[in-house]
């Protein structure tokens, strides 16, 4: 049993084990949830990955170029409609974007509301007022970010990650880069599982709470072991690739085949994105 255990220690002490385990489980669950959705029948799931990538990219550009709030709002609603047509629960889709949004944009929006020069919209305190210009530019930022995240989420939730990567060929991303991204994603999972097992194994031998110093030592030991494992595994993986003919460049199967339906949807989506840019000028 660990010498540093401290049953009488208050709950104020860092619960590193619980937090880390919770974080790892949450990440794994989230990935599992995304995989489940991508396997469901739905509009976006039925399309070729390249159509989805080009569509999302076109709408992201339209959102960036549009200077009209209604147009950006319309693209957000379209993303929401596409999510519903792709078996993504609306509540989850909306919450996932809007709950995380304040952390990303809050720091920029809050000062912008007050410091942007313009006519006063709301006097909060003497000498502190929200300006109309500040409110509008904040709203623009908020809508642009939320719509962009929604569009990206739509792609990620309806397409298995390996298919997204393979689809990147349409953007002329080199095959070797796609292979590296795919391997990174694949081995992050393996390391997450390994880390989870290591933390669980540690937890099973700890009673009470560890003090902060012991927590740090444990984290350092686990990180070091994980690093050593990953270095060892990377050299083994390289040998395995060499064994099957890898010589530095990669040849892929490229199994995608665009169907007439894919072309039709691509035309519709690109047409809508162009319309959004034109109307939003």
């Amino acid at each position, binding site marked *: 049993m660990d010498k540093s255990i401290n049953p009488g220690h208050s709950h104020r002490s860092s619960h590193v084990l619980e937090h880390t385990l919770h974080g790892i489980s949450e990440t794994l669950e989230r990935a599992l949830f995304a995989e489940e959705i991508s396997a469901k029948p739905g509009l976006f799931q039925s399309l070729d990955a390249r159509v989805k990538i080009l569509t999302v990219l076109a709408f992201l550009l339209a959102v960036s170029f549009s200077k009209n709030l209604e147009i950006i709002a319309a693209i957000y609603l379209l993303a929401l409609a596409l999510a519903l047509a792709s078996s993504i629960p609306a509540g989850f889709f909306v919450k996932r974007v809007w709950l995380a949004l304040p952390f990303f944009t809050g720091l920029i929006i809050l000062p912008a509301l007050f410091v942007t020069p313009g006519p006063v919209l709301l006097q909060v305190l003497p000498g502190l007022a929200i300006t109309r210009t500040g409110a509008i530019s904040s709203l623009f930022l908020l809508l642009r970010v939320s719509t962009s995240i929604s569009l990206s989420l739509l792609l990620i939730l309806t397409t298995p990650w*390996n*298919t997204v990567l393979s689809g990147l060929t349409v953007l002329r991303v080199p095959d070797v880069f796609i292979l590296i991204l795919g391997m990174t994603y*694949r081995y992050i999972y393996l390391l997450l599982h390994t880390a989870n097992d290591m933390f669980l194994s540690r937890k099973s031998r700890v009673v009470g709470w560890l003090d902060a110093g012991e927590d740090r030592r444990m984290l350092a030991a686990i990180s070091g072991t994980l690093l050593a494992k990953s270095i060892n595994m990377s050299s083994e993986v390289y040998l395995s690739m*060499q064994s099957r003919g890898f010589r530095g460049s990669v040849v892929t199967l490229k199994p995608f085949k665009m169907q007439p339906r894919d072309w039709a949807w691509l035309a519709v989506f690109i047409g809508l994105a162009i319309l959004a840019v034109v109307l939003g000028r």
Partner: protein
Amino acid sequence: MEHIIHNETNNKAAPNRVPSPPVIQPVFEVKQVSFAYDGKQLALENIDMVVQAGECLAILGANGCGKSTLLKLLDGLYFPISGSVTAFGQPLTEAALRNDEANFAFRRRVGLVFQDTDVQLFSPSVLDEVAFAPLQLGIPREEVTRRVESALEMLRIEKLRDRAPHRLSGGEKRRVALASVLTLNPDVWLLDEPTTGLDPRSQSWLVEFILQQRQVGKTVITATHDLVIAEQVATKIVVFNEDHRIEAAGQPQEILKNHDLLHRCNLSHYHNEVNAVHVDPVLAK
């Protein structure tokens, strides 16, 4: 090495003489091979062995005796610090494998299935994994597609084609790992601890697979410490001791009945030894 595939013996018989039987080239010839990791940590010492075509060789040994290292040497991934390895009559050296043509010719003939399937399965999907080797080795895409379909069907993993390897069970991963080499249709299979982590049903399926490969004339070299699988598949056994040397080689019946040999090489134990494990009285409370 350039002539690995078309390794024809120049056997011109003189007139009026009875033609001598064709010389059968061994698949591998290992002569006085030693290997050490980082030049210090000895993994193999003075290994001599010959593997004939069509042979099903089991390399038996305890953990850490150098079995996996030997397979990597036979696959041209590691190279000995002393001694030599010959593959299909040609020296298997780093310099020889630097040539793309020779490298590809060798890799098409020899397939290694790693012990850890997570090492073997590095691609983001099963389909990419199974297609990886033939694509890298320059086999045309139509032929690769045909081979992939055939391998998926043969190993009954068609339904897994779009799945990510990290979402598969141990047995499924092993099948995909085999499929990833099967698409090469190699002459020689190198299997490193193939039964690790498999349930009994998957183990018996694997034995069937190895026997099937043996039947069609493939050479199969299996590194294992599993005496049962060695008995089921091997036509010849080589036993490694814990000093990283070959302790014995021979027919399965002869080797597997030699309990002293197996015991000496840490491949079996006597029951009274288990009972003799010292139990600390404090821990036993």
